[in-house]
């Protein structure tokens, strides 16, 4: 077997290596396109310059009006994870309750559909007045935006429960809690996991957006400062950091999914393969 093919077959069987390869191809593409003049390098710096800017940003110490990259990163992580946890917990609990009680679902449906498409940017002036420009207003829009992602997935997951299983549970006189635990939860879980993955990124995006617009300290605030100062490489460096947080977050939620869904066909087939 020639070495080229053995390399390919090794990469082909390892998802991690394949993923890194994918990111590598993407990075090379973004290096070549500006250099070849397909995209203007004034506005799209090639990957190497973005990484150079990231390196310099990493070396920049905390300044009074411009926190260092690591300080901004930790601020963003706190807001993001805090908001995400509230949204996920509230989404699952309320989703299970509303989903399992048909009457409640019927009477809340229009309100849920009304509230969901309201963009969080519309709430910002009011939130600044109510909560100032610290972490709280950003936290509120993060929870607001990502909560619906989880809630709707859970509602659909609960609706997907097999009526036979539901009737069986009823005839065996399973209490409400055990019905949730043994009948509803297993069906809803794949939906829930997708909901968490969706909410994870939505929460991240809204955290950065809130920091940009409201001025809450964090990566978004630094991003806005770089943007308004016309510092394109640093702007892209911070977008790169945001994207990488997304990749890491997905890797973690994927791993979590493999653990909680190991009995489900979507995961089972792949572990066996």
């Amino acid at each position, binding site marked *: 077997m020639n070495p080229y093919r053995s390399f390919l077959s090794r990469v082909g069987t390892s998802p991690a290596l394949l993923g890194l390869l994918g*990111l590598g191809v993407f990075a090379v593409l973004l290096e070549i396109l500006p250099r070849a003049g397909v995209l203007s390098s004034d506005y799209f710096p090639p990957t190497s310059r973005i990484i150079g800017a990231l390196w310099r940003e990493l070396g920049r110490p905390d300044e009074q009006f411009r926190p260092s990259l690591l300080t901004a990163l930790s601020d963003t992580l706190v807001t993001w994870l805090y908001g995400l946890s509230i949204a996920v917990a509230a989404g699952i609990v309320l989703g299970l309750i509303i989903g399992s009680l048909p009457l409640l*679902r019927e009477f809340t449906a229009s309100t849920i559909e009304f509230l969901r*498409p309201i963009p969080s940017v519309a709430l910002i002036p009011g939130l600044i007045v109510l909560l100032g420009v610290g972490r709280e207003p950003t936290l509120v829009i993060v929870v607001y935006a990502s909560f619906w992602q989880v809630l709707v997935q859970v509602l659909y997951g609960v609706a*997907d429960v097999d009526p036979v299983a539901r009737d069986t549970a009823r005839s065996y006189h399973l209490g409400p809690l055990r019905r949730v635990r043994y009948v509803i939860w297993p069906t809803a879980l794949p939906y829930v996991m997708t909901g968490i993955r969706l909410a994870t990124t939505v929460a991240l995006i809204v955290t950065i957006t809130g920091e940009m617009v409201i001025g809450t300290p964090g990566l978004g605030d630094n991003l806005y400062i770089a943007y308004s100062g016309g510092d394109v490489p640093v702007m892209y460096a911070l977008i790169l950091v945001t*994207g990488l947080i997304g990749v890491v977050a997905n890797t973690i939620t994927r791993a979590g999914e493999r653990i909680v869904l190991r009995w489900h066909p979507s995961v089972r*087939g792949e572990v066996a393969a």
Partner: protein
Amino acid sequence: MKAVITGLRRVVALVGLPIVLLLVWWFASADSHTAAMPPLKRILKVFPDTWFGERLTDDVLPSLIRLTEGYCAALVIGIVAGVAIGSSRTVRAFVEPVLEFLRAIPPPALVPILFLIAGIGDTTKILVIIAGCVWPILLNTVEGVRGVDPVLVDTCLTYRVSGLLRLRTFVLRSASPQIMTGARQALSVGIILMVISELKASTDGLGYTFEQFQTRFQYPQMWSGVLVLGLIGVVLSLLFRFVESRVLAWHRGQRAAERTSL
């Protein structure tokens, strides 16, 4: 008689809670002197003048057209790419990190980049809508395709059902409940991005109107716009329900869902 009661009950379910919440809002905001949070009374007072006129055709309509175009494109891209990615472990492992990277780029950072590529016009706005809507559809499709019943996979193999027939009768069918969930999620994400895509470099649209109200400090009008967005959300979800009940008529969970939802 029974039909009347059922109809009445539907109406109460539709407007009951919203009315309660509006009443709470009405009384809680009645003596607000904060400009950014005007009393609901003032918001409702400016509502007809603000929206029942030229704005309906000059701003709301173009927005909804762009939303429809972006949403439909996102459906096609999300389902096609989702089936491709969901069916192959190799493809999935290869593209997933890149997709996750792109998914995490916030729209305010994305919009200037898209201006450079697609210019100032409807194309960029539609691209922004696609860029947001595609993820719930794509992710749900991937998961739906991954999660198809292994017994059915074996059956298909045994009966040598393959190609398009397999895709249509088996893969898409099994995945459709989850695809519909994604499509539903994408709908409200789409409305939000419709607004965000029009905040800058626009000459019409709901987002443009929102930006005008904000920069001109016309808060009662801005809040009336929030109500409009909510109403659009309710109407589109009713439409969606209608389509969904046709697409998923065969599905077991659907019967239960139809009984109880909007």
